[in-house]
């Protein structure tokens, strides 16, 4: 075997604290190493060409590249090695950047460690065998989880490209948080005017099947062949018959139920159509508030419904579907701001969240677009906006900045001036974050043209005095304590991942951080992909972002999905388990332990043997560690190969 070792400088990232030349010279002394050198940038064009040239010149049969993490450039170098004619699995990497040069300054120790990591890679490579990928058919169907603006964009893009799309939305209507907005920044154009048509497109698009008021129950399988079970929650209304006339919502006697869509601003009935432009425009019953379910006596909606669509005995349905790719676009939720007892913790009715205020501003909202104080319904004159309630606050475990509150608060201040010309808006802020195109001019305009009074300082306490709310804050630019007598206090509440996002992440088998945001493949280079092939992310579920970025990510995720599903056959990963029938005694241990049911028992000349179903095996290696005989080996990570690495370390 003739192995070539290439030590990458990565500019100064590695060469800064690792003596690459000496590592290369040491590497040349390793067994089976025919050629060892160090190059400036291995992953760059010249670097790859140098490797190909060296393979040809020295008739190499295996390559070791010591550079960055294989999670980033293993695919790159495998293609390079393939271009040079070698099998892509006759290649190993040593991570001497993230695991060596970047975590210590001690040149001698780093160089020694780098050379040892290279010896490990070489010793493993000596036992590598050529592996040929097999190919399997791809289901040309995309599942989009979440019907907010990001999900809608992804679904429309994919459907327009001819892909069949299933959209699953937890709420009775799609539109997500954007549908709740009255206007959007920085152009103050009406939110439902720009989102409404898109929602209609989703409903009418021949390629899109919409499952509203449904959730993903379970997902199994792998990229190209996911089996998804969708739970269609019982809305107690037969949507095929319901015409969305809204008669039931008028007659329903239970008038005190919590209006989830309008963030509880006004009470509503138990059977509701969330908002006029809802898609699908169908009624659904909130079981919690419906008298028929609580007391067993009512049935008004059933009597009134012209098409007889009401059915109290409706059960959840399950739909099984095979999809090739999944786009998660589950969006965000406002955090529970009632931890701030100093702002009343929810006890003062006139302290509302920004989303509740948005519903008050909205003409289709419960107050018909009139801003009213929840306590006495009067029009407020002094409105105080408090920024960073639940963002940038270590003491309640939310150290991050939510990104879009500065912008929507500026917009709400403008709308307040439009709705109530003689009103005064006060905004308590720490730093105005307005990075987008036309954003900062927008926040300047609200202060200059609309006379919003911006005060730089946090608010320590809000307490009621008579009909007013006393807001006790600070103005750090003046260096004084300040107080405002307010009629209404609007909190720019920080956001977090949608409720239930971690649960979905476990079903999708993708990792998530401590706030519930999904983990992207690479924060800069692969923002819409995940480490799980075939699962893509779009919008705020990956990290808080405003509408333009969410839409952009929607399209990006669709593009990635289209790239994946454009091919009819996908290459399977050859790093899968294989059974050596001579050693297998048919004890079935591997069959029980395999999480993907990828091993089955076959009869070989009268003896039970195990056999791996290549397309289902994911290459986790559980069976390999369980088999008492060592009969089943995971290709590319066999026992010998791993132990060779351990040997390489312990022998010297």
């Amino acid at each position: 075997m003739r192995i070539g070792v290439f030590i990458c400088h990565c500019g100064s990232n590695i060469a800064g604290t690792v003596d690459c030349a000496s590592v290369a010279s040491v590497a040349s002394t390793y067994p089976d190493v025919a050629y060892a050198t160090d190059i400036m940038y291995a992953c760059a064009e010249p670097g790859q060409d140098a490797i190909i040239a060296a393979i040809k010149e020295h008739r190499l049969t295996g390559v070791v590249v010591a550079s960055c993490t294989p999670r980033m450039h293993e695919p790159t170098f495998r293609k390079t090695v393939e271009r040079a004619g070698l099998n892509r699995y006759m290649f190993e990497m040593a991570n001497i950047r993230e695991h060596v040069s970047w975590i210590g300054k001690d040149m001698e120790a780093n160089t020694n460690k780098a050379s040892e990591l290279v010896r490990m890679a070489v010793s493993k490579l000596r036992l590598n065998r050529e592996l040929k990928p097999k190919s399997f058919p791809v289901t040309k169907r995309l599942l989009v989880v979440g019907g907010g603006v990001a999900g809608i964009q992804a679904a429309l893009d994919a459907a327009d490209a001819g892909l069949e799309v299933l959209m699953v939305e937890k709420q009775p209507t799609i539109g997500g948080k954007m549908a709740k907005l009255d206007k959007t920044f920085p152009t103050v154009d009406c939110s439902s005017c720009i989102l409404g048509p898109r929602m209609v497109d989703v409903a009418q698009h021949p390629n899109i099947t919409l499952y509203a008021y449904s959730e993903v129950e379970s997902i199994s399988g792998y990229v190209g062949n996911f089996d998804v079970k969708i739970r269609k929650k019982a809305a107690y209304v037969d949507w095929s018959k319901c015409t969305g006339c809204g008669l039931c919502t008028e007659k329903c006697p239970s008038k005190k139920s919590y209006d989830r869509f309008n963030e509880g601003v006004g009470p509503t009935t138990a059977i509701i159509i969330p908002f006029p432009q809802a898609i699908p425009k169908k009624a659904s019953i909130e079981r919690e508030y419906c008298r028929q379910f609580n007391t067993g006596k009512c049935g008004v909606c059933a009597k009134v419904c012209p098409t007889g669509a009401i059915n109290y005995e409706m059960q959840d349905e399950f739909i099984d579907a095979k999809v090739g790719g999944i786009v998660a676009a589950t969006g965000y939720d406002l955090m529970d701001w009632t931890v701030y007892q100093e702002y009343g913790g929810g006890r003062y009715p006139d302290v509302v969240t920004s989303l509740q205020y948005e519903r008050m501003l909205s003409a289709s909202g419960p107050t018909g677009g009139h801003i009213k104080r929840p306590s006495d319904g009067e029009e407020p004159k002094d409105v105080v906006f408090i920024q960073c309630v639940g963002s940038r606050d270590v003491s309640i475990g939310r150290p991050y900045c939510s990104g879009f509150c500065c912008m929507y608060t500026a917009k709400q201040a403008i709308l307040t001036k439009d709705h109530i010309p003689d009103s005064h808006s006060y905004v308590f802020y720490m730093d105005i974050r307005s990075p987008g195109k036309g954003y900062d001019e927008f926040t300047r305009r609200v202060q200059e043209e609309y006379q919003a009074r911006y005060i730089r300082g946090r608010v320590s306490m809000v307490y009621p005095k008579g009909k007013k709310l006393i807001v006790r804050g600070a103005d750090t630019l003046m260096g004084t304590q300040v107080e405002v007598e307010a009629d209404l206090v609007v909190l720019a509440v920080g956001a977090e991942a949608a409720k239930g996002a971690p649960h979905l992440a476990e079903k999708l088998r993708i990792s998530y951080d401590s706030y519930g945001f999904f983990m992207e493949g690479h924060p800069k280079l692969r923002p819409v992909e995940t480490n799980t092939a075939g699962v893509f992310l779009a919008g705020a579920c990956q990290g808080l972002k405003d509408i333009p970025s969410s839409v952009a990510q929607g399209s990006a995720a669709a593009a990635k999905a289209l790239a994946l599903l454009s091919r009819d056959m996908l290459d399977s990963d050859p790093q899968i388990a294989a059974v050596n029938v001579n050693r297998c005694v048919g004890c079935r241990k591997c069959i029980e332990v395999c999480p993907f049911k990828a091993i089955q028992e076959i009869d070989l000349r009268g003896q039970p043997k195990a056999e791996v179903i290549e397309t289902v095996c994911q290459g986790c290696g559980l069976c390999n560690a369980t088999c008492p005989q060592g009969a089943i080996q995971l290709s590319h990570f066999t026992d010998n190969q791993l132990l060779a690495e351990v040997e390489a370390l312990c022998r010297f």
Partner: protein
Amino acid sequence: MSVLKEKELRVIGFLCNWCSYGGADTAGVGRFAQPTDLRIVRVPCSGRINPLFVLKALLGGADGVLVSGCHPRDCHYAEGNFYARRRLEVLKGFLPVLGIDPRRFEYTWVSASEGQRWQHVVTTFTANIHALGPASFSPEARELQILNAAAR
């Protein structure tokens, strides 16, 4: 060519590719400084680690072995780390029987986003191993010493 005398001890790490190896990368990207003793062997899943690998390493002269996988319920293969947890817990209890100090083997769960935590795990584990000093087998484990000498 082995560990730097008096400065390093032989510490081997078995890291699952999806979470802990990613966590070690995030620690690198974050430039979180760590001692240089640890050498990482990448495995597809913590469930792939056969307890015999750990024994082989310890008998082969490793002063410390660290295994790290995905947090329970986070595993890319759904159940890999559950099996790993059970196997390695049994192994930890079994080490004293072999005359090996159980403190020389540790297993933990680190996700791909926990760079800072990985720095803490490596620094603490390496410090503990330095506190224990180079591996030396208790007198009764004579056969192990012979085996070890042969392996060297």
